[in-house]
């Protein structure tokens, strides 16, 4: 009787173990086919998948390229419908909570626990539910800083700003020469419509101050002190004409870049992809871009924030037979040096901490940024990024904030009034 109980217990453990997400134990000759949805299709399809297939040659991965917002909208629809989800997908860190709330993602806690301490804490928080279960594996991180034109700064003897007061002063100095310190469209674009959008800019400026769009109870706090400081900074740049009124990623924006009229871009590590795709040899900015930490709001204050970054997630709809295959890809991409080197070289800074000290990753350079070792700077910023776990309503309050931004930028409302109105609408 007792033996039977022990045998039953062992059987139960084995069964549960089999149901849990498993990785790393897959035979290299395993055959199978997977479908992946992502907006970073070039990184995944052209770089990672071929590298993965060197290890697992018989696992065919079909990458379905989609636009950033389309990826997330379709994932939402597929989970709500109960069918149609891919085998795995790339999901931006800010939106993972939405899909956790939907209940459509597979719990990856078991896998993450085997890689304890290998991912930034803020990333795992963003991927976790209230009980601490983790539903995504951090794929790449997006530490934010100031991309700047070294040639412009040298030419006009601009010192690298350490505070936003110094940043504004630099902007005033450059304005005399017809150069903009950054670009801010008064129309206020969403994060998914341009390289980062004004909404994204406000978000990371708020996060930099350890602020949030929600309090611990989930109530919106769009008129918080941090949000106001961020908006005041943006409004100052707009009002004084220090920021060009162009949409990021628009033809006018790139023309400013070509004409050396854009001195800095506040953006994330992945902005290197924009530079790689746009700045060609012969361009005035080729070789002249550099990356520095964000200025601080107060002297000695935080100079770290995040804008984007992605996780690789499995879906509950993924057939059991395919989960191991998908986990093999996720494991390769997220927690092997080989996989992380591939997407680091592509320009997606890896979330996997052990890769940050690998000489191949640290010493990576890109021709448009001269000889600067960008990953070294990203790795210095990443551990200092404040938490930014936003509830599923995050998308909605972003849109509400976006609507108020235009009123503020064109001067129809003051910063305080605009944010108060946004707060009122968000809590309606």
């Amino acid at each position, binding site marked *: 009787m007792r033996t039977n109980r022990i045998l039953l217990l062992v059987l139960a453990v084995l069964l549960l173990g089999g149901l849990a997400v498993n990785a790393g134990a897959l035979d290299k000759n395993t055959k199978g086919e997977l479908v992946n949805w992502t907006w970073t299709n070039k990184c995944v399809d052209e770089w990672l998948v071929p590298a993965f297939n060197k290890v697992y040659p018989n696992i065919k991965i079909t990458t379905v390229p989609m636009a950033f917002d389309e990826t997330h909208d379709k994932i939402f629809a597929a989970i709500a419908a109960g069918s149609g989800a891919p085998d795995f997908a790339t999901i931006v860190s800010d939106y993972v909570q939405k899909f956790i*709330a939907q*209940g459509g993602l597979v719990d990856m806690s078991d896998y993450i626990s085997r890689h304890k301490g290998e991912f930034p804490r803020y990333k795992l928080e963003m991927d976790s539910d209230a009980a601490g279960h983790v539903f995504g594996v951090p794929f790449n991180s997006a530490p934010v800083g100031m991309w700047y034109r070294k040639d412009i700064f040298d030419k006009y003897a601009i010192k690298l700003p350490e505070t936003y007061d110094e940043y504004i002063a630099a902007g005033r100095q450059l304005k005399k020469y017809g150069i903009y310190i950054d670009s801010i469209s008064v*129309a206020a674009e969403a994060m998914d419509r341009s390289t980062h959008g004004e909404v994204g800019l406000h978000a990371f400026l708020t996060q930099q101050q350890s602020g949030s769009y929600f309090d611990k109870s989930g109530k919106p706090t769009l008129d918080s002190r941090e949000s106001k400081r961020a908006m005041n900074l943006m409004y100052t740049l707009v009002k004084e004409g220090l920021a060009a009124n162009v949409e990021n990623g628009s033809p006018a924006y790139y*023309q400013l870049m070509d004409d050396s009229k854009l001195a800095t871009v506040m953006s994330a590590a992945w902005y290197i992809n924009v530079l790689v795709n746009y700045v060609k040899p012969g361009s005035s900015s080729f070789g002249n871009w550099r990356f520095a930490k964000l200025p601080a709001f107060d002297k000695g204050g935080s100079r770290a924030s995040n804008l984007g970054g992605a996780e690789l997630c499995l879906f509950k709809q993924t057939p059991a037979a395919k989960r191991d295959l998908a986990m093999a890809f996720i494991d390769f991409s997220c927690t092997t040096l080989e996989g992380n080197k591939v997407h680091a070289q592509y320009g997606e800074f890896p979330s996997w901490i052990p890769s940050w000290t690998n000489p191949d990753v640290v010493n990576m350079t890109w021709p448009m940024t001269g000889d600067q070792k960008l990953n070294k700077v990203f790795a210095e910023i990443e551990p200092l990024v404040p938490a930014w776990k936003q509830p*599923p309503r995050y998308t909605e309050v972003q849109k509400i904030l976006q*609507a108020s931004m235009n009123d503020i930028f064109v001067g129809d409302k003051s910063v305080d009034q605009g944010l108060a109105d946004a707060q009122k609408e968000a809590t309606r």
Partner: protein
Amino acid sequence: MKRQGLGHRIVRYRHAYAFIAPFFLIFAVFGLYPTAYSLVLSFYDWSANQPWVFVAFQNYRKLLDDPVFWTSVWNVVYIYLINVPAMVVLSVIIAVVLNSPYQRFKDFFRVTYLVPYVTSVLSITIVFFVVFDDSRGLVNLLLSRIGLNPVHWLTSKKFSKVSLDILVTWKWVGYNMIIALAGLQSIDTQIYDACRIDGAGTLRTFFRISLPLIRPVVGFQLIMATIGTLTMFTEPYILTDGGPGYSSLTPVLYLYRSAFKFMKLGYGAGIAFLTFVLVLIPSVIQVRLYAERGRSYTAV
């Protein structure tokens, strides 16, 4: 004679019913069922993974108090008031010109005017996005050449709807021109001969004869334009994303956002049906105004 039952009629005309059945089956599965599902959903609160919670008319009550929704309704009314008259008037004028016996290269012009209609709305919107660019767009370039200040077509609340009007008018005037042309060509030429004999000039003939006789065609244009404008989605989604602020948000774009971005599927379904009612009212009025007893619309 004994009246034949429905079953008997179906059997007797079974071949006819077999031919028309596929449409109705597809309509039932892909049209009627989702519509009914959506109507039922509008009486529930369904977001994320929560089970459906019956809320009766709460979604509709919230909508009636939702300033963003009514802003979107006002936006499409504004777009309609500018776009539709301009489009109909232009299409009729062009049709009259192309119907003239003295007009040369008619086929060329007909095809040219129809090209915007057959081009993907997504492609057109992307091109207009560049054309309306504040600093590098073609329109502002032309304005600056004639000494005018550039206009913030897409980045100002004042002009965001005007940009949509221009795009939509440009895209649909060709289609409406073809409809108007078909209407003009259905008019018996003997009527025009009689007018000439009676000494009526071109303008008088147009206003007293052509226009009244193509009234049902114009009515059809207005009804289709009403439905199309009030349910606009792709153009504002690509061109302005409903902004700046909510200045170019349309009800269907708001529906899409509420359902798929804000995860308020029940609320989105409510927006769908309230929009349906708001579109139905002017459409029914127009049908009653323009339908003439005993005269069917020109087949288009």
